[in-house]
């Protein structure tokens, strides 16, 4: 494969060899900067390159070593141990992740990116983790920003950002092939290879495939067994970086993925779904007299196919969603103590398909944004960073409306402009060489998804002779999140470790869970559905609605360290309490936050051996019990406190080959962790070979 791949890029190489090049500085090599500073370097906090210890936000980095040592077979499992991150698993490959609470099916308040490209799916407004087209072995680090960061990344970075950063094809050589087999017919295989020519072109290509049987035990007796799609996923990713001149680089990334799985939807239905994604992204970055200039353009193509949920097979809920993004940013210094970053962004988002309306219907958003960041190094100890951003969204709809949806709205209702500001402010005090204190406030936004704005699923069911339709609501307002936070990071020299403490308060307004409330029904159903049934038509309509506000107060504590050269350990604890004011929905979807999340890690490394054990614990929380009806408000099901034991033992056969045994949910055969499928104990045997 390597040989074939080399021949495929021969023409590119020949052209590149003709480019002017000579021994040169590593202008934008974040890997070398990271090695030099001895800690992760990120642009994920302010857009400007920073050492993570100096970032004016609560940020955590999961490194490639961390990922390997967890033994994780997918990205969500690699994130389980991060403080304040709540990972929920409702199927073998179906995960939802929340940061600082509010996790739910189709979790939508976290913006997920790969090298800055959004992999958050705008159609239903969430992240399908299985369709992210990167292999774990090509991930350099995963950056987790806790709290709003809309001022940098725009809409949907409301509760946090997860940016998956892959290795740089020009500076990092990754060549590995591996695979695993496991219980439940699990098998995966992946290959990553890198080619570098004359220090002016670097190419990394990856491919991988995973298949398994889904968990077989189902907590919901009403849902028949054996109807769930067994999960599978395939992905290919190509990343190429050209050093055009000593001071400029051009990067092209292209990917394709396909994922099949059973999903827990926001309506508390388990569905069988397929996600096809494609993407192309280009970046041009140059070190100029005007600063570090970066121009980015990318396009995502998404097709989501719903094979029908298990209660309502045949529902036409497919959707196609294309997103095109242009970004232009300049990061520069004025004087020696003031760094600025200005950015403009344009985004075009269009969706069509049965979920939007009859043939010919389309929903589109055009978003224009400007943002600015100012980082003021007040003196050697103090710095103050401020970011502001304004996003302006123009919503429009074209094509025919479903007649039942037309009971509530016309196309004109979609002609709407939503303009919102957001900000981040962080004061950092490096009190001593080993102590850093942070004071932050931020305001972030989550825009309604295309589904929330303009869905049309009909008929999903019927009440007597009346069909039930699910509709969007163009009048949905963005959810806003405002946070206040104080943090302390302390390097603990005696244990070669770090202590971190953060206390935070977050206020969420106009919360907007994906899902719906009764919006219209014929008067004949007043006795069945309630006194609000006065609509003139003969259909029942359920529509998306802002549901109220919520406050979260909490704290995170984290301590890690090493004992001798061989032992490493870590413990973190997140305590959080939610206070809700919910107006419009019977089931309180804002309640799904455990009061306490605790993670413990113990690792041992000696010669060829590497062993790690992880315990993840959460206190009870609520989840909606699936009802099988779009009309019946789900009842709260209490998920008991739960601890999850995972472990990995790896052995290096030689310098390039490692064999490992990994176990997940080892504590018992089946665990009740959500109202989805029970999580089964899993054991994997994996082999990884570098070449």
């Amino acid at each position, binding site marked *: 494969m390597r040989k074939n791949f080399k021949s495929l890029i021969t023409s590119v190489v020949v052209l590149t060899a003709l480019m002017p090049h000579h021994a040169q500085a590593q202008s934008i*090599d974040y890997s*070398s900067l990271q090695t030099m500073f001895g800690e992760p370097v990120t642009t994920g906090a302010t857009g400007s390159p920073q050492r993570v210890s100096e970032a004016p936000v609560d940020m955590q980095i999961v490194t490639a070593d961390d990922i390997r040592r967890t033994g994780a077979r997918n990205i969500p499992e690699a994130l389980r141990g991060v403080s304040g991150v709540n990972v929920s698993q409702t199927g073998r490959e179906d995960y939802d992740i929340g940061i600082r609470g509010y996790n739910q099916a189709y979790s939508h308040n976290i913006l997920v990116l790969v090298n800055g490209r959004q992999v958050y799916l705008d159609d239903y407004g969430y992240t399908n983790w299985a369709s992210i087209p990167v292999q774990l072995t090509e991930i350099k680090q995963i950056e987790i920003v806790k709290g709003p960061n809309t001022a940098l990344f725009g809409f949907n970075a409301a509760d946090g950002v997860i940016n998956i950063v892959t290795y740089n094809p020009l500076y990092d050589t990754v060549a590995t092939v591996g695979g695993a087999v496991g219980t439940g017919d699990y098998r995966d295989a992946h290959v990553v290879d890198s080619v570098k020519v004359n220090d002016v072109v670097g190419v990394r290509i990856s491919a991988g495939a995973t298949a398994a049987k889904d968990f077989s035990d189902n907590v919901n007796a009403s849902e028949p067994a054996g109807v769930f799609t067994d999960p599978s996923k395939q992905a290919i990713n190509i990343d190429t970086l050209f050093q055009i001149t000593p001071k400029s680089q051009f990067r092209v990334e292209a990917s394709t993925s396909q994922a099949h799985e059973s999903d827990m939807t926001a309506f508390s239905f388990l569905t069988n779904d397929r996600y096809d994604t494609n993407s192309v992204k280009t970046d041009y970055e140059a070190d100029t007299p005007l600063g570090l200039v970066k121009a980015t353009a990318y396009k995502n193509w998404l097709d989501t196919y719903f094979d029908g949920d298990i209660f309502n097979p045949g529902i036409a809920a497919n959707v196609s969603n294309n997103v095109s993004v242009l970004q232009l940013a300049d990061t520069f210094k004025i*004087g020696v103590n003031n760094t600025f970053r200005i950015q403009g962004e344009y985004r075009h988002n269009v969706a069509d398909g049965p979920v939007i309306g009859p043939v010919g219907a389309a929903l589109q958003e055009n978003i224009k944004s400007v943002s600015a960041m100012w980082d003021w190094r007040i003196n050697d100890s103090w710095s103050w960073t401020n970011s502001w951003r304004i996003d302006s969204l123009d919503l429009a709809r074209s094509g025919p409306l479903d007649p039942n949806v037309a009971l509530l709205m016309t196309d004109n209702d979609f002609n709407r402009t939503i303009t919102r500001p957001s900000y981040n402010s962080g004061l950092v005090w490096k009190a001593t060489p080993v102590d850093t204190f942070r004071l932050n406030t931020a305001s972030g936004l989550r825009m309604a998804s295309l589904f929330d704005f303009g869905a049309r699923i009909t008929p999903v069911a019927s009440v007597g002779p009346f069909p039930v339709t699910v509709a969007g609501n163009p009048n949905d307002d963005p959810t806003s999140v405002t946070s206040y936070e104080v943090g302390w990071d302390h390097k603990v020299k005696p244990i070669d470790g770090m202590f971190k403490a953060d206390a935070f308060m977050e206020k969420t307004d106009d919360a907007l869970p994906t899902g719906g409330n009764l919006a219209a029904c014929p008067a004949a159903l007043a006795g069945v559905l309630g006194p609000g049934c006065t609509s003139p038509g003969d259909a029942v309509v359920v529509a998306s609605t802002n549901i109220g506000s919520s406050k979260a107060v909490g704290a995170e504590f984290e301590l890690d360290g090493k004992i001798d050269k061989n032992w490493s350990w870590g413990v973190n604890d997140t305590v959080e309490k939610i206070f809700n004011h919910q107006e419009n929905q019977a089931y309180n979807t804002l309640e799904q936050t455990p009061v306490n999340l605790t993670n413990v890690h113990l690792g041992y490394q000696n010669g060829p051996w590497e062993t790690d054990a992880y315990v993840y614990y959460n206190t009870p929380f609520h989840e909606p019990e699936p009802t099988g009806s779009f009309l019946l408000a789900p009842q709260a099901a209490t998920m008991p406190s739960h601890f999850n034991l995972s472990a990995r033992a790896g052995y290096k056969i030689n310098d390039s080959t490692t064999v490992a045994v990994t176990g997940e949910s080892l504590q018992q055969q089946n665990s009740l962790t959500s109202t989805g499928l029970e999580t089964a104990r899993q054991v994997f045997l994996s082999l990884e070979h570098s070449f």
Partner: protein
Amino acid sequence: MLKFRKTVALMLMGAALCAPSLGSAQAGPMVTDKDLQVAVRAFSFVYGMPKGDITIEVVYDPDNASSQAEAQELGKLIGTSGGTFANRQVKAKIVPVAQMGGAGDKIAYITHGMQSKYDVMAQHATADKMLTFSTDFQCVDTQKCVMGVEADPAIKMEISRAASTASGLEFSQALKLMIKEVE
């Protein structure tokens, strides 16, 4: 209540571990292996700086015993036949300030205690377009040295714009955005 106790216990544990290190002072040699590793890595963020083997002139003040001692110490650290630092082969050449730059070398380490010779050193560096670096940050703060580095207790780097410009050196923007610059 149990959760509260656990939380408090974690806080106390953290605070207890922190207490001994607050106010701790750095001790030991003036330039360490780690300092040199950081400096050598930083050289690759200077445009036009050749890759491959490098020779560092270790510059001392013949009138200052501690400066001479530090030069000898660094010479030993690098080794008589050179050593590998940050994946690059590095050789050291110990020279008094008056002979600095004479052999066409482009990088110089400036020892501590050279305040009285800063101007002479800077004249040589400017004339020979040299990158001067030191763990003596006073040399950078007074615009005489190009770069200051320190690896412990935390990595610290500082660049003098005036000294860089005088030596015709240009650092990458990415690096400059991450460190302290002085005018």
